[in-house]
């Protein structure tokens, strides 16, 4: 078992997630964009999709399945980009127009 399959890795990932949430919250506050629960929920779902895409590519490279890694990267990556654009427009709902 390597570091990236260990409990320590997921512990560190957990810390990263906490830092991301705090940093993102402050970033949105600075832009006066409100973040009700549904926005956090949608964001969380998108992060899962994004994480799935990265892990999918890595796993298939590790399995020596380059075609699956490439196709999966393109298909799921495109889905992640398109949904990111849509998500950003949703996140902007309620933004203070003066800013």
């Amino acid at each position, binding site marked *: 078992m390597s570091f990236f399959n260990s409990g320590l890795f997921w512990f560190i990932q957990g810390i*990263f997630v906490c830092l*991301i949430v*705090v940093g993102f919250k*402050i970033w949105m506050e600075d832009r006066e964009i409100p973040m009700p629960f549904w926005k956090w929920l949608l964001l969380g779902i998108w992060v899962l999709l994004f*994480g799935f895409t990265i*892990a999918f590519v890595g*796993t*298939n490279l*590790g399995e020596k399945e380059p075609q699956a890694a490439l196709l999966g990267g393109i298909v799921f990556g495109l889905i992640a980009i398109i949904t990111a654009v849509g998500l950003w427009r949703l996140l902007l709902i309620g933004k203070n127009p003066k800013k």
Partner: protein
Amino acid sequence: MNRRQFLKTTGAASAALGSVGLGFFGYEAGRDPESYTGWELHEGALQTFNRKRYAKDQPHYKRVGTTSRPDARTDVIFYRRGDFMRNWKDETGIEGLPEHLQAYYKKYPDVLEQDIYQMKEVFPKMRVDYQKYRDKFILASAWSNAMGAVSPQPINQPPEESDFPRKRRFGGTTEPLKMKSPEKTSKLIKQIAHQLGSTLVGIAKLNPDWVYSYPMRGRGFEPDKPVAIPEHWQYAVVVGTPMSWDPMYANPNFGTSNDAYSRSRIVAFRVASFIKQLGYAARPHTPGTSYDLMVPPIAIDAGLGEQGRHGVMITPELGCNIRPAIITTNIPLVPDKPIDFGVQSFCKTCKICAEQCPSGAIPFGDRVEVRGYQRYKIDTEKCHTFWNQNLGNMGCRICIAVCPYTRKANWLHKAALQVSANDPTGISHSVLTGLQKRFYPGPDPQKYYSPSFGGENASFRKPPWWLRAEDFIEF
């Protein structure tokens, strides 16, 4: 930099590092040898699927007519073709064959044609190809033979002699020990089987329909006399281990059945020995040809898996990469229930094995009646003929390698299994099949053949580094 800016920067850095970390996690999950189920430990922790949740009172195959028992002399193709080749003479034709073969070939003349084709057309061409191309596969062959080099002494006595415990030293008893309960005994036997090296273990009440009506040679039964099923064959303990994963994906040329055969054989003999030492009867039935019964339906009865379109049992943990063996016994046990984790629905839409089968032996159609039971029926003659049209280690195993269930036990494939097992609509089965076909394609099936039959000695995936002969041997 103020506190807010620091936290924002840290958050952005965490997002970048976390994403990179996920990529590395995925890479490690994909290459991790521990995701090759079967090689990590023998504590029973590998049988991870929650079978109770998917348990059914009846197996997925249905009894649809009058049942009959298979005749090992004709229904087991290795046995029949071996007999045929030993006895066939052009001058006497079918009349020179043993009576049971005469009767069989008169009933199935197309099978006779295929058996003659293999002997007269396939073998001469393969002898030529063997001389020309065999060097490339010399390490795979050596490894396969090495795996098969250790084997328990075959059982060649009838059940009433071989199955019962022998007297112990110093006047020890051979009377059966009084077990506290069948439940506890079942738990014990399963744990012992895991400890002795079995990846999966299940228990079934023995259905007599799975016992051969006429025996295999070398099992202690009188040849050409019907098998009377011994009373002490009440339960079947099913054990099984997988073939080594990387060579298995490089079938038909680099894989072998010998590795799992050997491991399962040894486990079965050890489990039988354990049961006998408790004073009960036990008889191992082991691969490749030391059976008195058909193994796959018993393994299905024992809840280890379901039959796939390719005729092979599919298990949740190993897909179809399992070589089972059986111990028949009279020690009181509690049978497991058969399971239904969606394989029948999946196989209806998937058909990848049928598309990838070079010989066309796997049906695209639905299940049919075989000896009174509804099941998928492969064309064993075509299948076995292809065994001798590639340069691999006696066999093919492509259907096992290409099956979407035969995947490593990492997060990705475990998640796909859970989705598939819990989808009553079958929508996910179509989606997963589509992804499998596009993301993990195999070569043109014709390329699997040896060059004399228009092929290129192709394999489903590249062999592992340790089986690439050209990297180690000067030719």
